[in-house]
Structure formats: C-alpha cells, structure tokens
C-alpha cells in the first residue's frame, strides 16, 4: 500500500550519460555480433543495398527529369527510346530496393532470434548448474522475467541496428551526392539532415528515461490490481471496496500523468524533427533556383535532391530509434548478466557410483554445520544411518529438519563438515551419479507439462512395467488408471489437475522408479491420507527395492513406522533412539508428540 512515488523520478535522475550509453551499447552489440557475424554481415549488406538504391533512384529521377520530362513536356520534343529506358530503370531500382529490404530483414531477424534463443538456453543451462541455496534466495518470478522478457528485450536493439547502419550510410552518401552536385546545397542539406538526427536523438534521450518510469507505473498498477483482487474477500468483509478503488485510481492516474508527460516531450521533438526535411527541401529549392539561374546545375539536379530528401526522412528516424532500443536492451542485458555472472555453481566430483549394492548407509561427521550468512540453521550434527534402516527426523517448526535432509540429498552443501554415502563424500560424486543413489521427495510437488508416465519416468529410461510397479508401490496406480487417458493423461500447467495427495503419490512413484538406495521423504506424504501413507511405508519395507529411508515426519503414525527417531531442536540433535526411548528421556519430544496426537485426533474428528 505504501506508495513509492520516487521510483520513477529516481530512475529519471539516474539516467546514464549519453556517451556512456553509446559506449555500453556498442559493447553489447559487438558482443552479439561476434556470436553471429555472418547474419549480421548479411543484414548490413542488405541495408547498404537499400541505401544505395535510394540514392540511385534519386539520381535516376533527376536524369529522367533532364532527359525526358523537361524536353518532352516543357520543350515539346518528341518522345524517343529514352522513355523506355527510364521506365525500366525505375522499375528495376524498386526491385533492387525491395531485395535490399528482404536481405536486411532476414539477416536481422535471424540474428535477433538466434541471439535470443542462445541467451535463453544459456540462462537455463547456467541456472541448472547453480547452488539451490542461491536459487532459493531468488524470487521465481524474477528469474522467469529474466529468462523470458529480459532475454527478449536484450536483443531488441538488433532489429533496427542494421537498418540504422544503412541509414547512417545513407545520410553520409546523400550529403556527399548533394555536395558533388552543388557544394552550397550540400552544406544546406548537411546542416538540415544532421540537425534532424541530433534533434531526434536528443528527443529519444530525453524520453527514454521517462519511458522506464512508465514501466514502473505499469508495474505498480498491476501490483495493486493483483493484490486487491487476491484479497477481495477480505476487502469485502471489511467493507473497504471504495478504499481499494481509490488506491487503484491513485496509481492509475499516476500512470496516466506519466504517459501524458512523455507525450508532451516526445511530440515536441517529433514535430521538430519531422519538419526539418521538408524545410530543408524548401531551402534547397529556393537556393537551387538561383544556382540554376547561374548555370551551376540543372532542373534535374534539383529534382534529384528534393526526391532524395523525401525518401530519406523515414530511414533517418531509425538512428534515433536504435538509441531508444539500446537503452532498454542494456538495462535488460544487465539483469541477464547478473544471473549469468553468479559464480555459485555446484562442483561435482568424478565418482560414477558408490560402488556398493543394496541399501545405502549415510553418516555425517560430528562437525556438520549449515547456515546462511550469520544465521546458523544446523550445528554439530552427528548422525549414522545403517543400510536398510528407516529413520524419522522429528522436531518443531524451524528446527532444521528439512534443511538436514536437503543436505543428505546434496541439494545444498553443508557450511562445514562432511556427509558420506557408503563412506564416500557426497561431493565426490559426478553430476548425475548421486541422483542414481539417492532420491529426494519434498512436500511441494512439481508436475511437468508431460504425461503421467513421463512425469514418473522423468529423466530416466524406465519400462512401462517399472513405471506401473513404482506407481503401485506409491499407491498411485489405482487413481491413475481412472484418469481420462490413464498413464497417458497429460499433467502440469495445461493438463489435468490432481489433488495434493495424488500429486505427492506421483512424486513418490517418480522417486521409486529409480530404485534408490537411499530414499528421503521430506514431509512427502503430508496431503496423503494417514492410512494410505502407512500402507505405502509398510509396502516399501517389504518391497524388493533395497532402500534406506529417511523421513521428516509430522504424524504419530509415520513415526511409528521408523526403526529409529532423530529429534532436532534449534538445529541441534537433542536425542536419537526408538520412539519409546525418546518419549521417556527427551521432554521436548514427548510434548511435541502429544501436540501432534491431539491435533490429528481433532482434525480426524472434525472432518
């Protein structure tokens, strides 16, 4: 609710200097061009052809004026073969210009699209290798925005850039041509056109910073709309609809004012730069008349210059336009670069396998510690889990249970200390080797936009038989067969939606299909009915999968299935042993278990 009126104005005052912008922009474009030099060269080649065709078409118009139009229409001379030549020349030049456009646009589109695709792939590749602890600290929305809109916007400057290079050549070429026809007119044309470009660039410069402000305002408007619509029930219950409308009106009107302010500036510069070519043309015509008078040039030369000026106006705008785009692209690329430069990749070892069969053992040395900055989450954890054991990790909210099991799967690395799987440091395993030994199932299940089968066999080659076996073990087979297309039913964002418990069972099947030697369940069955959960865990123990199981438990019934309980409080192990031993010896554990039992009973009763 708190307004931050200063964001937009802060951005405006923070606008970088024009020279910096040009230098940074050149570096950015240079980087992209180096990656795709051929398509860039093609685009620029097309653009230069276009520019050349424009200059030549103006020269031809002048020539036609002198050779055909004036002699025939003014001098009354008969029509001769030159007319046919003129007509053919005009048509061919048009074709040349069109080919130039096609070449330029194809090259530019290729380069921009390819760069965009490369950036996105590189971003995802980089993100996939980064420490999860870093990823967790980012907002998913921000990372999505970087890989989607920022990666896109970074490359927008590549669209108009080849055209602008052609336009620049056109500017130089035109001034030179006019100068060669008549130096005085060359000076007039040069002054007129260069002033136009300068006004255009200044306008873009003055406006683009404001344009960032519009983006900020639009963001504000969406944020208020989002929040207000999400909280609609509360708004209504408290009778604050009018207040919400007022709040929305406030940001909405601020956006309006920002847009109007932009229009005020932009239209002013726009009008001036728009008027400059016609004004230059008039000056050229008047001065040109006197030059013709003294015999320095012909009527055709005048037609050439006027025609050139009428054709050049639009391409020249592209030079200012590039500046607009470059500022946006630079800002977006900076955000992309920030992610690409994060030097927090997980380092993997070379071990391809733990070299053992059957259930895995897991042990930490007593100094195992984990924390963020100054915040210690786990300290001095000493755990030794025997192969084939089922161990429940129990503790109050915030005691570090989830963090601990996350370390076991090497999703995060400990700050100090070592975790060993069958005596080998987790960090010695090769990139995907650990996933073959350890399966981790969390509370929040992510389903991919794929079939049920694809979601279960995710990332491994599993036969239909294996998938079905895993689903049966996870108590998922029955509901899967009742789905519209059974195992071929599409899930995910655009597919069938499943209940929380069903999603968790799919995730469990996904873990089991890999026949892990160590299975970690981080409250992975929280939404599954307790009786089904018990069934799953019992079947798992009896199954042919030789697995050690570590589970973070919130239910008395799941704790009952464990051979051993590890009780955590404030990031420290306060007790290890059987449930009964802990109830007798650790008061905190006994209290927590009682609270779970009461809560479960009440819930069960009030259902």
């Amino acid at each position, binding site marked *: 609710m708190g307004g931050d009126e200063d964001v937009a104005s802060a951005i405006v005052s923070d606008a970088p200097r024009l020279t910096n912008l040009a230098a940074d922009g050149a570096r950015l474009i240079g980087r992209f061009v180096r990656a795709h030099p051929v398509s860039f060269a093609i685009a620029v080649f097309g653009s230069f052809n276009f520019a050349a065709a424009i200059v030549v078409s103006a020269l031809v118009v002048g020539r036609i004026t002198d050779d055909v139009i004036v002699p025939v229409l003014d001098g009354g001379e008969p029509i001769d073969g030159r007319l046919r030549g003129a007509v053919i020349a005009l048509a061919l030049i048009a074709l040349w210009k069109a080919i130039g*456009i096609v070449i330029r646009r194809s090259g530019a589109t290729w380069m921009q699209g390819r760069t965009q695709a490369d950036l996105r792939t590189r971003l995802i590749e980089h993100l996939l290798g980064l420490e999860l602890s870093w990823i967790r600290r980012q907002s998913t929305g921000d990372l999505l925005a970087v890989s989607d809109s920022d990666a896109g916007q970074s490359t927008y400057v590549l669209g108009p850039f080849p055209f602008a290079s052609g336009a620049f050549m056109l500017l130089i070429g035109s001034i030179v041509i006019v100068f060669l026809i008549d130096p005085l007119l060359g000076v007039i044309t040069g002054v007129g056109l260069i002033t136009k470009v300068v006004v255009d660039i200044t306008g873009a410069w003055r406006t683009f910073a404001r344009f960032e402000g519009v983006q900020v305002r639009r963001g504000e408007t969406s944020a208020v709309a989002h929040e207000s619509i999400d909280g609609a029930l509360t708004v209504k219950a408290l009778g*604050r609809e009018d207040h919400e409308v007022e709040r929305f009106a406030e940001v909405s009107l601020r956006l309006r004012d920002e847009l109007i302010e932009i229009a005020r500036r932009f239209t002013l510069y726009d009008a001036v730069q728009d008027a400059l070519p016609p004004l230059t043309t008039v000056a050229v015509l*008047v001065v040109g008349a006197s030059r013709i008078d003294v015999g320095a040039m012909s009527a055709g030369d005048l037609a050439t210059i006027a025609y050139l000026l009428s054709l050049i106006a639009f391409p020249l705008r592209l030079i200012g336009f590039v500046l607009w785009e470059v500022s946006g692209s630079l800002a977006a690329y900076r955000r992309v670069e920030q992610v690409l430069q994060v030097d927090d990749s997980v380092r993997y070892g070379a071990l391809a396998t733990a070299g053992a069969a059957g259930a895995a053992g897991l042990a930490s040395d007593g100094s195992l510690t984990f924390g963020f900055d100054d915040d210690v989450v786990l300290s001095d954890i000493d755990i030794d889990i025997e192969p084939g054991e089922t161990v429940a990790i129990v503790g109050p909210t915030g005691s570090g249970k989830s963090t601990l099991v996350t370390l076991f799967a090497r999703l995060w690395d400990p700050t100090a200390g070592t975790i060993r799987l069958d005596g080998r440091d987790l960090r010695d395993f090769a990139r995907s080797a650990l996933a073959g030994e350890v399966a981790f199932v969390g509370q929040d299940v992510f389903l991919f936009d794929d079939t049920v089968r694809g979601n279960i066999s995710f990332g491994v080659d599993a036969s239909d038989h294996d998938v079905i076996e895993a689903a049966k073990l996870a108590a998922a087979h029955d509901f899967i067969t009742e789905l519209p297309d059974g195992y071929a039913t599409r899930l995910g964002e655009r597919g069938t939606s499943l209940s929380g418990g069903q999603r968790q069972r799919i995730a469990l099947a996904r873990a089991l299909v890999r026949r892990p030697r160590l299975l970690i369940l981080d409250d992975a069955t929280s939404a599954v009915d307790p009786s089904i959960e018990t069934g799953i865990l019992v079947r798992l123990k009896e199954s042919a999968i030789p697995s050690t199981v570590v589970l973070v438990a919130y239910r008395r019934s799941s704790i009952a299935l464990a051979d051993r309980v590890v009780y955590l409080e404030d990031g420290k192990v306060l007790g290890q042993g059987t449930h009964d031993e802990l109830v007798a010896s650790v008061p905190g554990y006994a209290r927590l278990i009682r609270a779970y039992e009461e809560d479960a009973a009440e819930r069960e009763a009030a259902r």
Partner: protein
Amino acid sequence: MNGEMTTRAALRRLFTEIPGLGRGLLLTAGLAMLGTGLQVAIPVVVQLIIDIDILGGDKVDVASAVRRGGLAVLAMVVASFARRSATFRLSRLSAAALAELRIKVFAHLHRLSALHVQAERRGALVARVTSDIYRIQDFMEWGGMGIMIGVSQVVLAVAAMLVYRWQLAVLVVLGVTIYGLALLVFQRILGRAHDRVRERVADSMSALGESITGLPTVRAYGAEGPTLHRVRSAVDAQFRAEFKTYSLGSALFSSAEVFAGGLTAAVVGVGILLGPDSGLTAGGLIAFLFLVNLLVQPVQTLVETLDTAQAAGAGMRKVIGVLDTPVDLADPVDGAGLPDRPLDVAVRDLSFAYPTGGTVLQDVSVSIAPGRRVAVVGQTGSGKTTFAKLVVRLLDPSTGVVEIGGIPVDQVRFGSLRARVGYVPQEGFLFDTSVAENIRYGKPGVGDDGIRLAFADLGLTEWVEQLPDGIHTQVGEGGSQLSAGERQLVALTRAWMSQPDLLVLDEATSAVDPALEVSLRRAIDRLISGRTSITIAHRLSTAEASDEVLVFDHGRLVERGHHRDLVAAGGVYSSMHHDWMAGTRT
C-alpha cells in the same frame, strides 16, 4: 452475451462508456489534417518552383522562388505545430480516457462476487484492468493517429493529383486501391502465421517456466540433461517459427517498394505519353512522383492499423464482458442501518446453489439470540462456510432470508453492515505492507497506540513485540513473511479494531506450533466474548466451549443444541465426538 459483438461495435461502446473520449476529437482531426499539409506541400512547391520560376521564362525568377519558399516555410511551421498539437491531444485524451475506463472496470470488479468466489479466474481479471486496457490504449494512441494522418494524407494527395492531371490520378488511385486490397489478403495470411508463432512462444515460455519453477525437482532427480534439451528444442522451435513468419512478413513489406516503384514508372510512362498537349507540365509530372510515395505509405499504415484494431477490439470485448456482468451483491438503495443494540440473527428457509448447478445449502432455518456464542461443525462440503458467507452477505442466497437485528441483510446499507458485522475468513489476507497498516485497514485513522492497545487487549503484546520491527514489521507479499497462524493473529486483531456486534469467524485448519496455538485460542476467546458470534469450528474443543452447536451435513442443518445434549442424543455430532475422544487417547 457479447460473443457476437463486432470490433466496430466494441469500439463504439468505448465511446459510450467514456463520454469524454469524443471531446475535441473533431478539432484533433482538423489539426491532424492541417498537419498533414506539411508533407503534401512539398510536391506542390516543387511543381510551382520548377514550372513557373525555373522553366516559366527565359530566365530563372529567383525573387519569386524566394517569396514562394518563404510562404512554404511559414505554412510548414504552422502545419508542424498543428501536427504536434494533434498528436499530443490524442495521446492525452487516450491516456486520460483509458485511465478512466480502467478505474471504472476495477470498481465494477469489486462489486462482483466472482472476484472472491472463483479464485481461478483472478489472473484473468487482473488482465482486464491491465494488459487488455493497454492494448486498447496502444490502438487509440498509435492507431488513432495513424488513421487520422493516413486518411488526411490520402485525401490531400489525391486532391493534389486531381488538380494536376485527372487521368494520372485515376491511374494512381486505382493502383493503390488494388495494392491496399492485396495487402489485406496478405495480412490475413500473415495473421495465421502469427497464430502459429504465438503457439510456439507459449510452448517455449512454458518450458522455461517449468525448468525454473521445477528446478529443485530437476536437481533432486539429476535430470538437468533432459530438461535443458527440452528448453533448447522449445526455444529453437520458437526461433524457427518466428524466422519463417517474419521472412514472409518482410517479403510482403518489401512488396510496397516494388509496387511504389512500378507505379512511379507507370506514371512517368503514361505522363509522357499523354504529352504536353494534355496540359501536363514538367513540374506537374515531377510532383506526381512525390505524390505516389505519399499515397503508398499511408495505405500500408492503414492496413496495419486494421490489425491493431482487431487486437484492441478483442481487448474491448473482454472489458465489456466485465462491465456487462450484473452486480450481484449490490448496496441497497436507501438501505437501512442496523439497530443500535446487540444483534441477533434469524435465518429462514435459506438455500444456496451455484448457477452452474450443485446445491450447497438447503432449507436452513435458525435463530441466534444476541450475545450467543454459536459453533458450526460439519464435514468438508457440508455447507458451513457458505452458511457463514450468506449470513454476512458475501453471497446472496438462492432462496430464503437472513435477518440481522430484525432487518433483512440485503436491505442493510453496506456501510452499516460491514461496520457492525465482522467476518474473519480462514485465510485472512494480508496486504504487502506493515503489520500496523494491515490492522489499520480494519479501522482507518487509528494511531499506533491504538493498534498496540488492540494487540494488548487480545493478549498478543508478547507476540507482536518479538517481531523484527514490532508493529511496523513488513509482512511481505500476501503476508509471506509470517506463518499461517501469525497471519490469522493479524486478521483477528484487524477484526477486533472495528468492535463488531456480530462476528463470524472461520477457524484456521492449518497446523500451528503449540505455542502459537495458545495465543490464537486466547485471542479468539477475547475477540468473541461479549458479542454474538458464529464460529466455523474445525476443532471440537471450540464447539465444546460454545453456547450452542449447529451441525451441518450435506447442506442441511441436521442437529442443534448444546455440546452436552448433542453428545447425549447419539446423532451425527455424537459420533464425531466419539471419534475425537478415541483419537486423543491413542
């Protein structure tokens, strides 16, 4: 209801919704027309200077050319100002008009129950006041200007041509018309290609989104390889589709050049063949070469504008869909205020069914005396939450009446109803600001001391003081910095601020830590003591402590009475109670 509405009808509706939109539009159009003179003046000046001043006599008349040039400069300055003024006026108008429309739609949204009933539609509703409106605005600003300038440029250019040589004018107009029609066909082909691109873009966005959102899962299963492969192929497919479509687009775009060139060549050929006897001068023919370019370009712009008009029309249709949805929970005209005494609740024959079918509540009748503490229990889907929402009029019943303090709720002024009747939903929504601001939301204008006092009254001083910044602690988006139980504490305190006479409370179901649980219960006890209260109970202990229990089952009120008596009666409640007792004693 407006599925058949055409783009034209939708845009016309825009003018009725925002009466200010038409204001000064004629003047703006006039200025745009004047502004266009800037471009069209050039061929005319070229013709005059060449024909009269240069070729007109034996000698070039420089003085006349200077006079003519001076006049032209003057005209251009005026035209330039006119154009600037037209563009700015249109930008200002569309920014203001669309802000007005946006606020209007937003206000209407808040009057619809769909906003809090259909959670899954929320994202789409946000789009109604953001992206849909931006699209209309883009069209009005750029499309509107494109149309104004384009049309006046076409009109002026054709007029100039007709003055010079009607035969050539007919040739050019005919050519341009055929070209315009061809462009329309191209546009349609291109439109279909763009649809395919949009599909590919959606695919690659979804692949990117998945790989980021599902990253922890990908890591847990060591599936980086296949994930990256999927992203790469989706992104490449998008690139290929885009390249194909844009290449087609540039071929179409460049056809304008071929066409303009061909037309120029034709004009030169025909003009010369017509010869001087037809009255065509050298300057006139040269002017035509300029005019051809002035005509081809706006035709291209106009065709493109048609395309944005379609998009704007689609946005407008969606916006109209919102505005045309009747307000289902209206503040009554001349509504009554609730009587100034403790409030009782009387419900008669209350039924509720969703329009899509599915009866949620059926023939419920009950009266609750002032000051009573009532608990509502029942299984998920028994209709107890719907009952609560009907009582506080967050929904209107299909049939039946709810009376509070003797007045039917639909005849009570919202101002009075919301001030005297408090409702605390299960998931109390918190705004992304401080704890204090969230409390103040329940009672605008209350000071920090008042807020601290409220926490103290509910026994929450200790809790609020241990927050990083006390009552000024920021709660984050949707209250994400607080736990579910803590959010409930803030929501309860917010309800306490308005000191309602009737309180309807939906108990939270999510598990909370034992310590927080104590605070929550104490706060709820203090909140409901001394006022009429209806609590949707998810714990039987709440029911046990109440004066009366209402038991819902499959949309009907099946039992009511005191906990004691209901347990003894041996019905639905009794068996629920039995399970509970059995459960705690495991």
